[in-house]
C-alpha cells in the first residue's frame, strides 16, 4: 500500500508523454514519410506506434524508478552512495586470492580455444589494455591530461620497424629499446610542458602527437612515409613463425615437424603480450603503493601542497610522463609486430581519443576499470560488426550514458587501507 502511494502516476504520465512526443518528432520524418520513386508515401501510423511504444516504456521506467527498489537501483547507477573514492576494508574476501590465478590460467588457455580472427581481436584488445594502463599513469594517477599519447605508441612501433630495417635487430633486442626510446621521447615532451596545467597541457600534447605523426609521414627517406614500413614478427629462441625463415632461423613448424599454420604466430604474440600485460598490471599496482605513485596522486590532488612538502613537482611529473610513455612504447611495439606492417595512418588523433576514452570510462586511476574498459571498447565494436553502420552511434550513446550515470568511471576507486599501529602487514 505504502509503495503505491509513493508512486506519482501524474509524474510518470508526464514523463511518458514528453518522451512519446519527442519520439514522434524524431521518427515522424524518418519513418513516417517514405520516399518511393518521385513520390512521398504517407505512413504516419508507424511513427505513431513507435512513439506510443517509447512513451509507454518511459511511463513504466518512470513508475519503476519511483519505487523503493528502483530508487536504490538508480542511486547505485548514479554512484550517489558516497563519492567516487572509497577505502578498502582491511578484511580480504574469502576467494580474493583465488580470482587472480584463475584469471591468469583462463588467459593462458584462451588462444587455444579461439579461432584466428578472434585471437587477433583479443591481441588488439590486450594492446589497448597496455595503452590504457600507460595513459592511466599520466592522466589517472598524475592528473595530466595528455591528448598526444599516441605519439609514444608510434615511437614504439617505429622503433621496431626501423631497428629491424636498418640495424637488423630482432624483436627481443628491440623490446627494451622501444620502451626506453619512448620514455626518452616522454622526457623530451615533458621538459617544455612541465609548467603547464590542464587545458594548456592538453593542447601542447595534442600538438606533439600530431608532430610525431607528420614527421613519420614526411621523413620519406627513413620511415618510408605513407608507404609504411614492415615490422618483424617475434621469434621463439630463434624459431620463426613465418612459412619460410626470413630472419636467418628455422621456421617453428619445421623444427617441430608440424604443418604450417599462421595461427601459431598469433598464439605466440598473444602469450608474450599476455605475460607483459600481467607484469605491467603487477608493476602499476606496486607503483601505486610506492612513494613514486603516491607522489603522482598527491600531485593530481594538489600541486601546491606537494611543493610545500618538499616534493619536486618537476621530477614527479617527468617520471609519470616517462613511465607512461614507456608502457605506450611497449604497446606500440606489439602493435607493429602483430600487424607486420605499420604506417603513420595508424597513429592519428582518433587513437589518442580512444585511449583517453578507455581511461576515463574505466575510472581515472583504477587499474581494473581501465582493463575492463579497454576490453569492452575494443571487443564490443567487433561484436557489433553486424550493425556496422550504427557502430559509432552506439559507441557514442554508450559513452553519453556512462558519463551521465557513472561520471567517475566504471569501477569505483578503492584506496588501500593501512593496518593500525604496531600491526605489520
Amino acid at each position, binding site marked *: 500500500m505504502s509503495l503505491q502511494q509513493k508512486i506519482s502516476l501524474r509524474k510518470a504520465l508526464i514523463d511518458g508523454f514528453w518522451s512519446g512526443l519527442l519520439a514522434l518528432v524524431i521518427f515522424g520524418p524518418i519513418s513516417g514519410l517514405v520516399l518511393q520513386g518521385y513520390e512521398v508515401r504517407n505512413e504516419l501510423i508507424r511513427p505513431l506506434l513507435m512513439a506510443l511504444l517509447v512513451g509507454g516504456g518511459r511511463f513504466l521506467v518512470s513508475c519503476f524508478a519511483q519505487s523503493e527498489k528502483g530508487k536504490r537501483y538508480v542511486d547505485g547507477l548514479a554512484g550517489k552512495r558516497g563519492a567516487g573514492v572509497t577505502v578498502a576494508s582491511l578484511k580480504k574476501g574469502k576467494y580474493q586470492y583465488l580470482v587472480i590465478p584463475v584469471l591468469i590460467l583462463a588467459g593462458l588457455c584462451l588462444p587455444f580455444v579461439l579461432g584466428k580472427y578472434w585471437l587477433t581481436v583479443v591481441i588488439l584488445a590486450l594492446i589497448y589494455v597496455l595503452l590504457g594502463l600507460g595513459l592511466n599513469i599520466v592522466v589517472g594517477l598524475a592528473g595530466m591530461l595528455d591528448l598526444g599519447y599516441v605519439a609514444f605508441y608510434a615511437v614504439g612501433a617505429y622503433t621496431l620497424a626501423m631497428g629491424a630495417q636498418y640495424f637488423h635487430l630482432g624483436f627481443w633486442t628491440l623490446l627494451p629499446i622501444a620502451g626506453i626510446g619512448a620514455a626518452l621521447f616522454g622526457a623530451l615532451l615533458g621538459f617544455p610542458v612541465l609548467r603547464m596545467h590542464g587545458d594548456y597541457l592538453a593542447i601542447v600534447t595534442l600538438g606533439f602527437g600530431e608532430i610525431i605523426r607528420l614527421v613519420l609521414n614526411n621523413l620519406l627517406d627513413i620511415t618510408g612515409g605513407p608507404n609504411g614500413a614492415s615490422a618483424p614478427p617475434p621469434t621463439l629462441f630463434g624459431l620463426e613463425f613465418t612459412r619460410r625463415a626470413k630472419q636467418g632461423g628455422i621456421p617453428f613448424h619445421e623444427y617441430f615437424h608440424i604443418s604450417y599454420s599462421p595461427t601459431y604466430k598469433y598464439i605466440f604474440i598473444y602469450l608474450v603480450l599476455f605475460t607483459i600485460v600481467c607484469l605491467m598490471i603487477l608493476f602499476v599496482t606496486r607503483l601505486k603503493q610506492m612513494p613514486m605513485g603516491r607522489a603522482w596522486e598527491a600531485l593530481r590532488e594538489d600541486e601546491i601542497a*606537494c611543493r610545500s*612538502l618538499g616534493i619536486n613537482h618537476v621530477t614527479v611529473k617527468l617520471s609519470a610522463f616517462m613511465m607512461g610513455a614507456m608502457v605506450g612504447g611497449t604497446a606500440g611495439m606489439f602493435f607493429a609486430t602483430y600487424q607486420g606492417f605499420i604506417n603513420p595512418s595508424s597513429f592519428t588523433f582518433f587513437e589518442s581519443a580512444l585511449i583517453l576514452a578507455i581511461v576515463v570510462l574505466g575510472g581515472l586511476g583504477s587499474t581494473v576499470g581501465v582493463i575492463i574498459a579497454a576490453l569492452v571498447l575494443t571487443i564490443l565494436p567487433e561484436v557489433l560488426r553486424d550493425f556496422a553502420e550504427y557502430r559509432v552511434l552506439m559507441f557514442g550513446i554508450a559513452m553519453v550514458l556512462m558519463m551521465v550515470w557513472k561520471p567517475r568511471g566504471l569501477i569505483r576507486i578503492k584506496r588501500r587501507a*593501512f593496518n593500525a*599501529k604496531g600491526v*605489520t602487514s
Partner: protein
Amino acid sequence: MTTETETPLLAVRNLSMRFGGILALNNINFDIKQGSISAMIGPNGAGKTTVFNCITGFYQATSGSIYYQDGDSTINLVQVLGEKLHFKYVLNPRQLASRLYYKMFGGSHLVAQAGVARTFQNIRLFREMTAIENLLVAQHMQIVRNPISGVFKTPAFRRSEQAAIDRAHTWLEVVGLEDDANRLAGELPYGHQRRLEIARAMSTGPKMICLDEPAAGLNPKETEELSNLIRLLRDQHHVTVLLIEHDMGMVMDVSESIVVLDHGEVIAEGTPHEIENNTAVLAAYLGEDYSTTVAAPDGTGAEGNPQETNNS
C-alpha cells in the same frame, strides 16, 4: 637547546614584493628566534600571507633576502627559488652557474627540504587520499623512493615503508586522529582537516613550521586545543613556530613574540605585552583617531618605529 644563541633561525632583510604597480611588501625586516613561537598579525591586506609565501618559497620576492640558519650554514631562501638572470652575470661565472642551477632545478620544494614546512589558509589536503596516505606523501623525501627497490619490494624498501607508516601513526596520535587513519582526508570534519594538515607539515621533519591562520573556523574549545598542540610541537618536537592569526586571544596566549604588519610594512615587533600597548598597532587596528585621542597620552609611540626595533 644549545643552538639558541644570537643567530636567529630566520632573518628577513629588506624584503620587498611588488605585484605590478602594487607594493605589497616594503622593506620588511624581522627575525625569528630558534625555538620560539612567533605570530604575525595585522589588518586584512597588510601583507601577512605575502610574507608567508615569500618565506615558504611560493612567491619570488622582488628584492631582499631571507636568511635561514640550516645547521652551520646559512641559506638565502630567495636565492634557491631561482633569481632573474642578467647579462652582468656573464662576467661572474660562479654566480651565473648558481643562478642557472636554481633557475632550472630550484623552487619552493627546496625551501621545504631545507626544513620550512607550512599549512595553508584554505586547507590543501590531498582530499581523495586517506589521512595516513597524506602523511606518507609528506615523508616522501625521507624514505627509500628508488623505483626499482619498490617494484621488487626489497627488504630495505619494506623497512623504510614500515618506518614511514609507523611515523605517520605517531603523528596521527599526536594530533588525535588515530581513528581517522583510513578515512579520506576530504571527508574528515573541518577541525580534523586542520589538525591533519599540521600533522602532514610536521611529517616532513621540519625545523620551522609556518601556520597560516590555523584557528580560522575553529570553535573556542578547538582553538584552545590548537594552542596546546602548538606548544607541544615546540616543547616536545623542537620546531620553531610562526603563525598568522586573527584570533587575538589565541595570539596573545600562545606566542612569545609578535610581528605586526600594516600596508606592507612592519609597524611593531615585540612581546605580546609590548604589542598590546603599542600606539601604532592600536592605530592600525582601530583607526588613526584612536591613537591621537586615546592612546597618545601613554607615550609609547617609540616602539611603533620599525627602524628602531629592527636594527637593535
